[in-house]
């Protein structure tokens, strides 16, 4: 029974794939591939060494853009969250920049950085910066006053206060924010690669369509993007499960 429950999602996917394949079989000559065609596309990419190359290229950009954004936005957000006056000064600016889609920055990214990795990294940075800044600010606001008071009571120095109270108290919320933002980064990289670079999974999709309507490769690219997104999410979730990070769920 338990085993069945575990395999239910797999079963569902298998059924959907079967329906897809059947539907394609009824429309011979369709430009859209079936699952078997897509699997062939993935194999094709593997054989040409393109799959690994493009995945690495995309992950490279995501890693840099995301890490840089986290490196700048989280300390800044924590500081702004702590010093309310700073926050009041920054808040309108943040709220104006935040709703601008990272994709709207593509022309400026190309203008500043040309076509290449830097432009893509910049776009991911912009896409991650504001969500992470707000996450960090809110995380500080949500620290229960009792932890702050207890910390003050034990006579901690400012640096000890940051490392022993502030940091552990915001970690659970930061991890959730980081996980969601990593998802955003993964969305942005594909879009950025469609326009501003000549490699990566986003480029693969556009290139496969332009260079002869290879829709098997287009869908193969999509499937790979989905799988890697899933793996990134699972990886972040497993970090959240570390016992000393997980307290927010258990301490209502």
């Amino acid at each position, binding site marked *: 029974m338990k085993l069945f429950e575990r395999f239910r999602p797999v079963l569902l996917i298998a059924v959907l794939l079967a329906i897809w394949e059947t539907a394609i079989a009824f429309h011979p000559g369709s430009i859209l591939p079936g699952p078997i065609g897509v699997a062939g596309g993935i194999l094709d990419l593997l054989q040409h060494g393109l799959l690994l190359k493009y995945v690495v290229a995309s992950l490279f950009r995501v890693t840099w853009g995301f890490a840089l954004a986290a490196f700048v936005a989280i300390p800044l957000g924590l500081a702004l969250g702590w010093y309310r006056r700073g926050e009041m000064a920054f808040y309108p600016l943040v709220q104006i920049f935040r709703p601008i889609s990272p994709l709207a920055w593509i022309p400026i990214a190309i203008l500043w950085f040309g076509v290449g990795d830097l432009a893509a990294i910049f776009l991911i940075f912009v896409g991650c910066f504001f969500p992470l800044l707000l996450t960090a600010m809110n995380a500080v606001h949500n620290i229960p006053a009792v932890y702050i*008071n207890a910390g003050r*009571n*034990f*006579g901690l120095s400012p640096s000890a206060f940051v490392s022993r*109270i502030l940091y*552990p108290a915001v*970690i659970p919320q930061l991890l959730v924010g980081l996980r969601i933002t990593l998802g955003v980064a993964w969305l942005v990289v594909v879009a950025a690669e469609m326009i501003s670079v000549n490699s990566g999974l986003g480029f693969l999709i556009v290139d496969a369509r332009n260079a002869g309507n290879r829709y098997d490769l287009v869908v193969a690219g999509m499937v790979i993007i989905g799988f890697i997104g899933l793996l990134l999410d699972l990886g972040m979730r497993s970090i959240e499960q570390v016992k000393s990070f997980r*307290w927010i769920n258990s301490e209502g």
Partner: protein
Amino acid sequence: MLQAEDTVPDTRSAPKLRAEHLGVVYDRDGQLLPVLEDINLDVQNGEFVCLVGPSGCGKSTLLNAMAGFLSPTSGSVSIDGEIVMGPDPRRILVFQERGVFPWLTVEGNIGFGLSKLSRAERTQRIAHYVKTVRLEGFENSYPSDLSGGMKQRLQVARALAVNPDILFLDEPFGALDSITRVIMRGELLRIWQTERRTIFFVTHDIDEAVQLADRVVVLSSRPAQIKDILTIDLPHPRNISSSRYLELRDELLKQIGLAYEI
């Protein structure tokens, strides 16, 4: 059982804790709200004082001012003759709820204020207080795996570990069920009798006050003043159905303005 001279503090010595003409006024959007008015109180070294009063009267405000978390609008609080300017590890406040750090284990919590000690001293001190609050076997547990009563014991242990002069407790058992609460009172008394700290204990529970305190300070409704100070002249362990106990309890109920009958 303790001798009478152990529980009755020596009133001739200088007080451990003194509040002089203490007043606190809150500023609520420009509206001035006086909370405490002219509080004068001496607490002796090693004394167990309970603070009771109608809910919302400013008990916690007084506690926070005494512990240094709130600066008074007028008057002062001094400990050993020294004016209280802010929180200090020599006096630890125990909170009603969520006071322990959920990201640290039991050992980590107890050792929180001990980073200046050597490793060996710290280990030894932690082991001592794990035993004092009877959390043996839970050293590596996180607070999420402890019951409410255990978490409060852990908080008391973390407070005691830094060797404070005064423990301030803000309704520490208020969030516990009634059975656990009674057990916790016994535990706190046992710890107080072995450790001999000055304890200033806020509660809204009249029985709790009569069972624990050497003296009970009764606050009036807001703006709060000291209405009365009742000396509980009962030796420990206290018989809670003795006539003297009931007399003191009734007196307190009357002071707070509660009827004996429902």
